[in-house]
C-alpha cells in the first residue's frame, strides 16, 4: 500500500512525471514507426504538430527546439540535393536562374525531413521529462539486470566528467595556439600529445573504478532492489498498448514494402 504522503506527492506531480520512462521510450518507437508508415506530407505535418503539442503541454517546447538546429543543416542539404538530382524528378517546381528544382525530389526530401523532426521532438520529450536516477530505478524494478542498469547509468555520469576534462584541454589547446594550424598533419601532431594522456588517464580511472566495484562485492547475488518511491499512471497498460501498436505499425510497413 502507498503511504498517504507518497500518494499526495504522486498526485501533485505534473502529468508528464506520472508517466513511466518505458512508456515514454515506447512512445518514441510508436511515433517513429508512424512517421515511416505515413507517406503523405500533410499527415507527417500533423504528426509533427502532435509532438509539438506533447512538448508544449509538458512545458518543454522551448528547450527542445534547440535540438532541431542539429539536423536543420542536413534537412536543407537534402532539399537541395534531392530537389536537383532525385532520380524520379519530372515536374519543375521552380528555377533559380539555370538551376531547376523539381517537385518530386523536394517532396521526398520534405518527407524525410519531417520524419527526422518527429524523431528529434519525440526523443526530446523523453530527454526533458526523465532523470538518470528515475530511469535507473524504474528499469531495475522492471526486471532489468542491475549490471546492465549500472552500465547504462554510469555512462550518463561519466560523460559530464569527461566533457569537463575536455573543456580544460580545449582551453589549454587555445592557450597553446592549437587549431590555428593550416595543415592536417600539423593538427594531428598537436592533438596527439593531449589525446593520448587523456585516454590513458580515463582507462586508468576506469580500472580503479572496476577494482572498487570488486571490493564492494558488486557481483554479490544477495541484492535488494530499492522499491520505487513513485507510482506511475497505468504503466503496464500503456506498455501493452504501445507495444502492440508498434508491432501493428511494423506489420503495416512490411505490408507496404511487399506491395510496393
Amino acid at each position, binding site marked *: 500500500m502507498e503511504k498517504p504522503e507518497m500518494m499526495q506527492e504522486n498526485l501533485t506531480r505534473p502529468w508528464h512525471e506520472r508517466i513511466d520512462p518505458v512508456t515514454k521510450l515506447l512512445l518514441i518507437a510508436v511515433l517513429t514507426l508512424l512517421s515511416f508508415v505515413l507517406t503523405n506530407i500533410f499527415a507527417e505535418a500533423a504528426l509533427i504538430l502532435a509532438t509539438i503539442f506533447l512538448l508544449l503541454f509538458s512545458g518543454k517546447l522551448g528547450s527542445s527546439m534547440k535540438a532541431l538546429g542539429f539536423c536543420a543543416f542536413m534537412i536543407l542539404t537534402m532539399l537541395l540535393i534531392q530537389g536537383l538530382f532525385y532520380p524520379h524528378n519530372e515536374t519543375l517546381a521552380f528555377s533559380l536562374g539555370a538551376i531547376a528544382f523539381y517537385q518530386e525530389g523536394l517532396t521526398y526530401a520534405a518527407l524525410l525531413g519531417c520524419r527526422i523532426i518527429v524523431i528529434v521532438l519525440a526523443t526530446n520529450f523523453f530527454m526533458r521529462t526523465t532523470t538518470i536516477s528515475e530511469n535507473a530505478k524504474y528499469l531495475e524494478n522492471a526486471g532489468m539486470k542491475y549490471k546492465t542498469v549500472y552500465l547504462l547509468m554510469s555512462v550518463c555520469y561519466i560523460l559530464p566528467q569527461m566533457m569537463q576534462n575536455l573543456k580544460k584541454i580545449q582551453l589549454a589547446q587555445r592557450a597553446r595556439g592549437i587549431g590555428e594550424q593550416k595543415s592536417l598533419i600539423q593538427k594531428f601532431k598537436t592533438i596527439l600529445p593531449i589525446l593520448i594522456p587523456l585516454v590513458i588517464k580515463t*582507462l586508468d580511472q576506469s580500472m580503479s573504478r572496476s577494482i572498487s566495484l570488486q571490493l564492494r562485492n558488486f557481483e554479490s547475488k544477495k541484492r535488494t532492489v530499492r522499491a520505487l518511491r513513485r507510482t506511475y499512471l497505468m504503466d503496464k497498460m500503456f506498455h501493452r498498448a504501445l507495444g502492440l501498436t508498434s508491432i501493428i505499425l511494423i506489420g503495416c510497413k512490411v505490408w507496404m514494402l511487399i506491395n510496393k
Partner: protein
Amino acid sequence: MDKKTSSAPSIWRVNLTPAVIGLIPAAVGINYVAKAFAEGLKLPVWLGSLGTFLASMLAGPIPGAISGFINNVIYGLTLSPVSTVYALTSIGIGIAVGVLHAKGGFSSARKIFVSALIIALVSSVISTPLNVIFWGGQTGIAWGDSLFAVLVANHVPVFIASFVDEFVLDILDKVVVAYVACLIYKQIPKKMISYFKD
C-alpha cells in the same frame, strides 16, 4: 605474437565482469571526447569510434560491440536522436576490430592499414541502408555529399552513390582511428592490458 594455448579465454565470451563494466563507460567517454576534438579542430574525420576500437582491442569483440551500441544509444538520447540507429554500425565496428585484433591484424603498419580497410567496408555496408532510409543517401559531411550529388546527377543508383559517399569517408576515418588506437594501445601499461583482457 604470443601463441595461443587451448586454455586461453575465447574472444566471444559474454561475461560482464567489473573490469568490462568499468571499461565500457570509459570507451563511450573516449568516443565522445575524440569526436569533440575532431569537430573542434574541423578535421575531415569523425574519430567517434576511437573508444570502441580500444575497448575491442583490450577486452574483445563483445565488450567493444556493447560499448559501440551504448555509445550510440546515449548519444541518441542526449544529442542527436537519429544517431541511435547507427548503433548497428558501431556493433559491426566493435566486432570487426575485436576479431581482427585477436587475429593479429594490428601487429604491423601494413596490417593495420588492411584491417582499417576491412573495418571501413563493414561500417559502410551497415551504414548505407540507414543513410538511404533516414537521409536519402547522404552522410552529412559536405565533401562526401558533394560526391554523392555528382554520382546521382550522373544517374548512378542511389544505393551505390550512398555507399561510395560513406566508404570514401569511412576509409579516411577508420585508417586514422586505427593508427591512433594502436599508438595509444602501445602506450597503455601492460598491467592495465592484462587486467582488461582477463
